[in-house]
């Protein structure tokens, strides 16, 4: 099995899809000659040429807006936003245009585009380059949202996103690009929209996604050493949301925690906790617990940065207390 990094897997997904589908174009800042700020699109311009790998000026709203127009006229664009923090700049094109065109126009046309971006903490990049803004996307009807946590998912989810009939926001995590895994890309994969159960345990269900999956798995190991066995669910896509898998395990286990790097209030964890409480109320031994980012901006200081998002210790400690 080849050893691949998350970055390699993303690149390979783009290359494989582009080779299959001549209508796929990449458009964004530094995606061509530079190869992407995090190296994901390295040398794709050599393979596919500057007509399909398009370097742009620093003009985020128009990058996303151009992708919308291209998607409406027969292309399948992959627009790149260097940081998810720039989402706000593009929110009109994304939320008012891409997300609503199929609906407003009575189903005449879809917007089959992918918006690739990356977010999260881990580089001392400060308040404007470290956010987790998936809740903005999840809160916008009409958008799909994928957030791969593993190398295999980086590949498969991007490949699948590139066949979606509707706009997909694809958020990578900046701290995962160099993560390596032995992956068999030909192994069967879960369909788009299906969560993965990464660990089975009888005491507690932990629902998470993206980089927090790794912290949760680490915490689960610590907990196992103390005799607490956690089931860990990696959502993979937040829209579609595989609530059936969540329900099945929460009903069996009776205890749930949700873990997200994004700010806690009105975030993804809040939505998940509300839904679990509503739908699985009769099966729960105690309230659903959220472990999420603090309701504060991210600091450049490394100590404050790591202190403001969940880590394995907080997750394990909280799970331990739930079962105490």
């Amino acid at each position, binding site marked *: 099995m080849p050893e691949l990094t998350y970055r390699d897997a993303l690149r390979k997904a783009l290359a494989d899809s582009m080779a299959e589908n001549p209508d796929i174009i990449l458009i964004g800042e530094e995606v061509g000659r530079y190869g992407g700020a995090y190296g994901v699109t390295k040398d794709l311009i050599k393979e596919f040429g500057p007509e399909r790998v398009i370097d742009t000026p620093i003009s985020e709203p128009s990058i996303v807006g151009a992708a919308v127009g291209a998607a409406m006229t027969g292309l399948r664009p992959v627009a790149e936003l260097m940081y998810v923090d720039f989402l706000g700049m593009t929110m009109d094109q994304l939320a008012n245009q891409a997300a609503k065109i199929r609906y407003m126009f009575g189903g005449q046309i879809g917007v089959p585009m992918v918006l690739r971006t990356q977010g999260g903490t881990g580089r001392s990049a400060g308040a404007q380059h470290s956010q987790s803004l998936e809740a903005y996307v999840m809160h916008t009807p009409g958008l799909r949202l994928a957030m791969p946590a593993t190398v295999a998912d980086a590949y498969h989810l991007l490949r699948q996103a590139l066949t979606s009939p509707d706009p997909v926001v694809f958020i990578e995590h900046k701290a995962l690009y160099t993560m390596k895994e032995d992956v068999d890309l030909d192994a069967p994969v879960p369909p788009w929209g299906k969560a993965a159960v990464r660990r089975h345990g009888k005491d507690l269900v932990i629902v998470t996604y993206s980089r927090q999956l790794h912290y949760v798995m680490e915490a689960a190991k610590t907990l196992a050493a103390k005799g607490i066995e956690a089931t860990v669910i990696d959502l993979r896509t937040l829209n579609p949301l595989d609530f059936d898998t969540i329900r099945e395990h929460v009903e069996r286990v009776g205890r749930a925690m949700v873990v997200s790097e994004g700010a806690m209030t009105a975030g993804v964890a809040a939505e998940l906790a509300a839904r679990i409480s509503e739908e699985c109320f009769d099966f729960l031994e105690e309230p659903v617990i959220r472990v*999420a980012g603090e309701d504060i901006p991210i600091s450049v200081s490394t100590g404050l940065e790591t202190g403001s998002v969940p880590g394995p210790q907080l997750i394990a400690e909280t799970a331990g207390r739930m079962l105490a």
Partner: protein
Amino acid sequence: MSKKSNSDLLGLYRTMRRVRTFEERVGELFVRGQTAGSMLHLSIGEESAAVGITAAMKPQDTFTTHHRGHGIFLARGADPNRMMAEIGGKEAGYCHGKGGSMHIADMSLGHLGANAIVGGGIPAVVGAGLSARHKRNNAVSVAFFGDGATGQGVLYESMNMAALWGLPVVFACINNQYGMGTRIDQATANTNLHERAIAFGLNGESVDGLDVEEVAEAARRVVDGARAGKPGFLAVSCYRFYGHARKDKSPYRDAGEEETGRQRDPVAFTRARLIERGLTPEADLDTLDAEIGAEMDATIDFTIAQKEPPLASMFRDVFDPEEPEPEPVRTRLNRVLATE
């Protein structure tokens, strides 16, 4: 052009040398693993823009900068120790380790903030211009940004408003030829950047950043014009000597280009001019450079000796200090999970 006196040119040189040396020390702090992260953008090669334009500003003036703003802030009179400490993410830094290199600010010097969003600091000067008009305080507000920010629509919206309302505002574009790996002519079809400002009804000029006296002269025209009610735009052309940020080795430009580019060195150019004009003996410049070297060396020692911000400080300054701080996740968990 009026020839500057000895002390004027020497003063400009001194500030440019301080900027250059400070930036070199930032690079050193990074190599020593003492910076908060690697997103550090050095303004080496661009000193004349920072120094020439701030020289035309008055104490009541305000400004915003882009992510490559160390030099501008230092030229405006910042304390290099507190700057370096901020770059190190330390409590003693200007923003107590929260902002870092890309989000440094000091209201007492009129610095409304550096910005990690390309173009993000531009429209604030329109608002500052409205304030100045309303308060009749005769202040000009200057937005410093790179050539890359000319791709952002917000620049054009801001220039249009400034011209429409005759605001005391200056748009200062530091054209170092690159936005990351993209050369200016790969980002725009018309590289005569000032022409678009003229089209909006501003005073628009472009100036060669090799010569700080020319930059200072042009800046004076544009800033004075803005103070009198006609906003301006000034593009200073220079060359980004090194990579975009600390980890970028600029593989997208060839060595020959870099060598030529680095010959356009405003600090060396001004130094040579001082000697050539017989204004300052070389030995005096050597002494000055050594003094500045020692001053900037001390910023490193200062920074390394400073404390990290205390963990609890992360909840401070989300809102006004009179207001309650956001509740920490741990506090909530303690309450929710309290065993009776």
